[in-house]
């Protein structure tokens, strides 16, 4: 759990710094900031996908392993 927390914190810092460097300043009195919003949403989405893969990594490995194993077995002549 501690390792996971550390990974999440690292992700936060790297993604946060990356976005902070790229975000634009408001151009109008009340600027909706669509460009920054979309970019942040996409990056946060990518982080989410990354975390999801990380969480399911054991299951993914097992599934892929099973798939290849099944293929190998089916290729073996009976």
């Amino acid at each position, binding site marked *: 759990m501690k390792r996971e927390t550390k990974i999440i914190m690292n992700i936060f810092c790297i993604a946060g710094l990356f976005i902070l460097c790229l975000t634009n*300043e*408001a151009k*109008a*009195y009340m600027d*909706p900031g*669509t460009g920054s919003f979309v970019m942040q*949403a996409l990056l946060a989405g990518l982080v989410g996908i990354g*975390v999801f893969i990380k969480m399911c990594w054991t299951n993914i490995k097992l599934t892929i392993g099973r798939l290849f194993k099944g293929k190998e077995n089916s290729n073996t002549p009976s």
Partner: protein
Amino acid sequence: MVRKNIMWNIHPFLFAVFPIIFLYSHNIRSMESSRMVGPILFAVCITLCLILLLRFIFKCFNKATVMSSIIIATFTSYGHFYQTFQTSISEENLIYMDIILLNLWVGFVILLLLFFFRTNRDFNKTKAILTIIPSLLIFISISKIGLYAYKNHELYEWHYSPQAKSIPSIEPKQSADSPMPDIYYLIFDAYARDDVLKKYYNFDNTPFLSLLEEKGFYIARDSRSNYTQTCLSVSSSLNMTYLSTLADQLGTNTNYVLPLNQMIKKNLLFEFLTQHNYKTISFATGYYPTEIHNADYYFSPSWVPDDFQNVLLERTPLPSLKFMFDMPDRRYKVIAHTISQLKEIPNLDNGPHITFAHLSIPHAPFHFDQYGNERKIFERGYANLDTNSEERQKYIKGYIHQVKFVNSQIIEIVNCLLENSKTPPIIVIQSDHGPSSFLKWNNPDKMTYYERMAILSAFYLPDFDTQTISPSITPVNTFRIILNHYFQTDLDILEDRSYFSSKTEPYNFVDVSEYLDENSNGLASMEYVSLFRQIQ
């Protein structure tokens, strides 16, 4: 364990408050943090209701929170994605795109509901991811706020200091015995001077101006604005001063405009007139910097969102529903309400009153046709006006329609004020800056600030020798001459100067007064601006 469960279930609330914190972080230079409180409370309440409703439907708390998060995230980001595609679609097809997008969103929510009904999953992993995503987004926005506050801590300290809040006092030489007149300061946003209308808009405004003259108005035929932006111009005119001292205090490279809001809300003109037993009157403007809520009388239509809340609402699918169900636009409601209320002011009470009304018309967007009917225009956010001829022609057409409507309303308002006032009133009809069919902030070499700074200035001043008013008067001197005459003050008449500054550096003033004559085509003067910047 219970605490851990709660932590992983707060994600719908995080998704709900993120757009509010994001918008504040993006516009921190121009708004107070307190304006987030209302929307955050509203978002939290709505989220709670949604969770409870979905919990009742699914009989499962995890399902309810996950479904809520997805609905909230797509609902509040809808407008951003819409705007991303908007630029590549023609204006006529925008409504179809909106219908398609709206149907897609509704379809997505229905499919999601069906999926959640049928599935038996526990969503424990999904909950974790749904918590991480908005937490990261909020973390970024809060970091941005912190970074801005750290960089500008001196400005904040100054802004909240007593020195920033103090305003100079004006001493009258003697108090007047006769009943004092009501004063009306009516600002019509971006109303151009007649020569600009003739030259660039092919519109002859002479009949309207002649009508005003017949009623006793003096028209300053060569009037210019002191600044190119509303908040700069209005804070300057209401405080009867140039903003060079403020620029010196804040620095020319900052975009921190909060002090201007403060200068408008607590202004020298209101302070002075309050000391002379005037009651202050203001109206909802739909533009937060010019909203003076603390006036003795503040008139507003039944609830209308302020500009911050409006931008938040515009990011949701709600404007599409408003458009489809033919509901009036916020801006239309505010302007129509102010116009109708202005006519009633003389009947309010015994006064005397100082009435300040900033009407964001004939400024774009063009919600009014020439007869005052609401034009259904479909747009979200700010129009990105380009200098190509097609866009300019659309602007000119919409602008002239609004000028015609405003003209008819000004005459009606003036008639009401003159007929119903017991003492002949003082009426100032002025614009804060000119229109912007040639304006491009980022490419000043292509814009004509002659168009942006030549403004309408009309004065109804009873028992005043208007021959003494300079035809090129600027708003900074408007109330200096009025107070000197009617209140026997001894205010200096300042030299009429006009300063250009961009949105990104509002205090980086460039004196362009010498280049504001009718014969300038703007390019020569912009060369001067470029040269000035290079020298700086």
